[in-house]
């Protein structure tokens, strides 16, 4: 199914979130989500069949991933539940190195016979491709972990919450939006549980239970007389949490300088939808921005996407080396810049850190999909480029001995490869609030939430929009603005970073369906930051008369 077909199926239409092309797995009744699945002893037995078969066919390395992927998606529109989907996908993926070359095969027939056959197929693919392989695989050493496990820390498992409770919550958010002036509202709740078992010939057996959640909506207000419409998307963030994210705790609300609430690790969807309707109406009358240079004050749920595109992607080592040249592209952050130890990625207050460990983040797991324990590491320290994101078969290319632990596959039937970990901007070290930041700006724009985003294939030139924009004049927040987008160059932009609010303002942005690779795979990743100021950024006006 093409991406657009699915959006139509889900009935989301205009102003809606973009969704991945496939709903992976078979549709199942809701109670089947709670069934236990294959027990761990049987998983170990099946994984050993794969590893032993691979070794008997001469593989120098093998790993097996037995995965059960459970998804529940709820879609609503105004006062209607449009669709509730529960899916399950179960199978095993086997990856081998034979004759110095990777081979991969997968099957949903997780029996001794099925696993053996898939392993033999992986070996055959490796041996066939070895003939045209010019760079034999070199793996960084990894610790043998024995039998270990990890779970997303959570209070409420979405699978135990009745669907009706979820649908009712979305419908009450929709109702509140409609009461407050929205003409249309679509809302959706995405919930994912990955039950992953990993084993490798390095002697690791890893059992993990990973949860993610994303509530979102689009509210549209219309002015028929002028033939105009404006949409306002949710200011939620997808999180690596349980259903407790939907609790809407007031202790997790943060007041924006424009007077409305933003959300940390607990989301109040009714409050946000109510505000969205009011803001969408306000946008219909808001003034169009005067193009020019502005100091931008970027809220974390906006800045996260800028970090994702201008720091996360260009520092993926496979992109830097050319493995993604035919699709996403390569990177301006070439090895010579890193080797120089003085490439000024940003101003000296810019510290960008990669991790797979932040609690509540989408990237958090105990171990990556090739059995490496997860950690945190620096990418940019005091403005200088210091490292990349790399996995076991890549780190030798940057003279390092230890994988960074950021290998991931979207399912058992896709091969794992390097994926972006969480990449976050460290908060300012001195106490500095968002109020103080606004007070210091003479001519600026405050931007909250994600909007249109586009960046070139080497990650130099970008253009970003946002969800809502407010004028800042002489230290005060002014009225809402329309038609705002900023264009910059990655290095120039990060070097224009002059102030970062302290840790009390730190929040996470997330990307639930980040795409990479051919055939494409999705992954989920968070980006934390505090509100940050960038000076003298070029703002264009995107309004047109047709």
């Amino acid at each position, binding site marked *: 199914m093409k991406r657009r077909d699915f959006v139509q199926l889900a009935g989301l*239409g*205009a*102003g809606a979130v973009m969704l991945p092309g496939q709903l992976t797995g078979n549709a199942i009744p809701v109670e089947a989500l709670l069934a236990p699945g294959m027990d761990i002893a049987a998983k170990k037995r099946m994984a050993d069949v794969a590893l032993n078969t691979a070794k008997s066919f001469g593989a120098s390395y093998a790993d097996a991933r037995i995965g059960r992927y459970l998804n529940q998606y709820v879609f609503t529109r105004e006062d209607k539940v449009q669709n509730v989907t529960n899916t399950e996908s179960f199978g095993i993926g086997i990856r081998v190195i034979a004759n110095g070359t990777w081979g991969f095969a997968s099957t949903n027939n997780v029996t001794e016979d099925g696993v053996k056959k898939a392993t033999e197929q992986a070996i055959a693919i490796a041996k*066939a491709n070895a003939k045209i392989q010019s*760079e034999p695989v070199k793996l960084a050493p990894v610790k043998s972990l024995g039998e270990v496990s990890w779970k997303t820390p959570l209070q409420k498992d979405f699978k135990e919450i009745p669907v009706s409770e979820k649908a009712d919550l979305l419908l009450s958010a929709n109702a509140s939006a409609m009461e407050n002036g929205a003409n249309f509202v679509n809302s959706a709740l995405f919930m994912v549980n990955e039950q992953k078992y990993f084993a490798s010939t390095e002697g690791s057996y890893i059992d993990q239970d990973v949860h993610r959640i994303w509530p979102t909506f689009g509210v549209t207000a219309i002015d028929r007389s002028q033939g105009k419409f404006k949409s306002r998307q949710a200011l939620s963030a997808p999180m690596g949490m349980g259903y407790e994210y939907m609790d809407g705790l007031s202790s997790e609300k943060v007041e924006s300088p424009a007077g409305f609430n933003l959300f940390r690790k607990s989301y109040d969807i009714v409050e946000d939808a109510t505000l969205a309707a009011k803001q969408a109406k306000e946008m219909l009358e808001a003034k169009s921005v005067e193009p020019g240079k502005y100091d931008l004050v970027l809220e974390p749920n906006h800045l996260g996407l800028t970090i994702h595109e201008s720091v996360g992607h260009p520092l993926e080592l496979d992109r830097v080396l050319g493995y993604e*040249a035919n699709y996403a*592209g390569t990177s301006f952050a070439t090895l010579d810049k890193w080797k120089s130890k003085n490439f000024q990625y940003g101003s000296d207050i810019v510290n960008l850190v990669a991790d797979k460990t932040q609690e509540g983040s989408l990237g958090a797991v105990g171990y990556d999909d090739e059995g490496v324990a997860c950690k945190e590491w620096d990418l940019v320290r005091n403005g200088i480029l210091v490292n990349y994101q790399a996995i076991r078969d890549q780190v030798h290319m940057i003279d390092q001995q230890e994988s960074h632990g950021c290998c991931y596959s979207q399912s058992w039937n896709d091969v794992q490869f390097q994926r972006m970990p969480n990449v976050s901007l460290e908060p300012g070290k001195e106490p500095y609030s968002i109020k103080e930041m606004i007070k210091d700006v003479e001519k600026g724009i405050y931007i909250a939430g994600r909007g249109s985003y586009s960046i070139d294939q080497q990650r130099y030139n970008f253009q970003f929009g946002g969800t809502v924009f407010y004028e800042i004049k002489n230290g005060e927040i002014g009225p809402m603005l329309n038609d705002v987008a900023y264009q910059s160059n990655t290095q120039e932009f990060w070097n224009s970073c002059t102030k970062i609010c302290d840790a009390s303002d730190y929040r996470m942005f997330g990307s639930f369906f980040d795409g990479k690779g051919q*055939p494409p795979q999705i992954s989920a990743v968070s980006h934390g930051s505090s509100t940050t100021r960038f000076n003298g950024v070029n703002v264009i006006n995107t309004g047109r008369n047709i």
Partner: protein
Amino acid sequence: MAIYSKEEAKQLLEKALSFSKADACEITLNGSESGNIRYARNSVSTAGHRSNQTMSVQSSFGKKSGVATIDEFDDASLQKVVGRSEELAQLAPENPEFMEPLGPQEYLDSKTYVEATAKINPEYRARVASDSIKPAAAKDVTAAGFLNDSAGFTAMANTNGLFAYNQSTDISFTVTMRSNDGTGSGWSSRDFNDVNKFDAAEASAVAIDKAIQSRNAKAIEPGKYTVILEPAASSQLLQNMFSAFNARTADEGRSFMSKEGGGTKLGEKIVDERVNFWSDPQHPDVPSAPWNGEGQARKKMNWLENGVVKNLAYSRYWAKEKGVEPVPTPSNGIMTGGDASLEDLIKDTKRGVLVTRLWYIRTVDPQTLLYTGLTRDGTFYIENGKIKHPVKNFRFNESPIIMLNNLEALGKQVRINGNLIPYMKVRDFTFTSLSDAV
């Protein structure tokens, strides 16, 4: 083998339907075999093969419906999946937009399946990679490419007597060639139902040539330029424009197609009168499935005629609400071209920019269909009818509506992603900044 013949599919669907106890039941059956090879840095990186089969059952009681899917088709599994969909339907809320499944339909014939494509094997894929890598290496260029081929079928049947079946094959190929000095990049793309029409060496040579010609690009000022857009450059913008050809969002007032004061732009001239756009599942160069997921027949349909909006897509529900005939969304897009070759278009250009492709296209304003993105993999300055030199890539902010109003000339059509799009020359295309990306 996951590909069933028409008779096999029909028997299986009828058997599954015989287990139905619902008011209505509609079942879709899919199967496909696909293979791929990916290479980069002049070496193969990954290769894979996938076999897929799914049956999806939608049962309904009144306006309540439920869907269940399964990938095993023995009697017990069929009974289980039908039963599950019925349980889900009983629990589901009423859907006020529910539509009864269609009765028997008549479908056109479409030649979407070619046996030779279904027979592609791993050796063929390795040869494609080699046909890219070897000539690249010989010219100090690095190849990165991806080939995906698939063969499959879709069938559907329901308790109102509808039966539909279609088989199709597809091969799609893209390759990026980068000069080893890092200053030039070229790209080409091919897609066909019939693998016999595909020549990996020819496609690779085009990309290699662009990589070499685009080395050491010069910066020119951003601004409004006459551009010659290769079909790969305009096709995504045109596809995005067609997302607005939806009657419901237009009627609801939240689309480019909505009119000031209410109503839609159906029947209005929105672009240059030389623009004609239609869809046709039987077109020999871009054959596509003659029916859609609801079993509606697809036929030749005009969308833009002499620049005038001739049709908007109506879902069955929205058509019923509005008292009109449903219009299914198209499965391909065909834009009328001219006789001019790319060389002819260049020859007639005093000053302009040749664009190989546009990249990272995103909506900026759905109201005006304004999009942004960048040129990539071969952008050249044209002066006095000749390519003068490569230029640095640009970011653009442009609407396909403005673009098609500024049409200067149309050239020959080329197949791109299952559509047939001509080369086109457009004046005043808006480039807003420069990019250092190669």
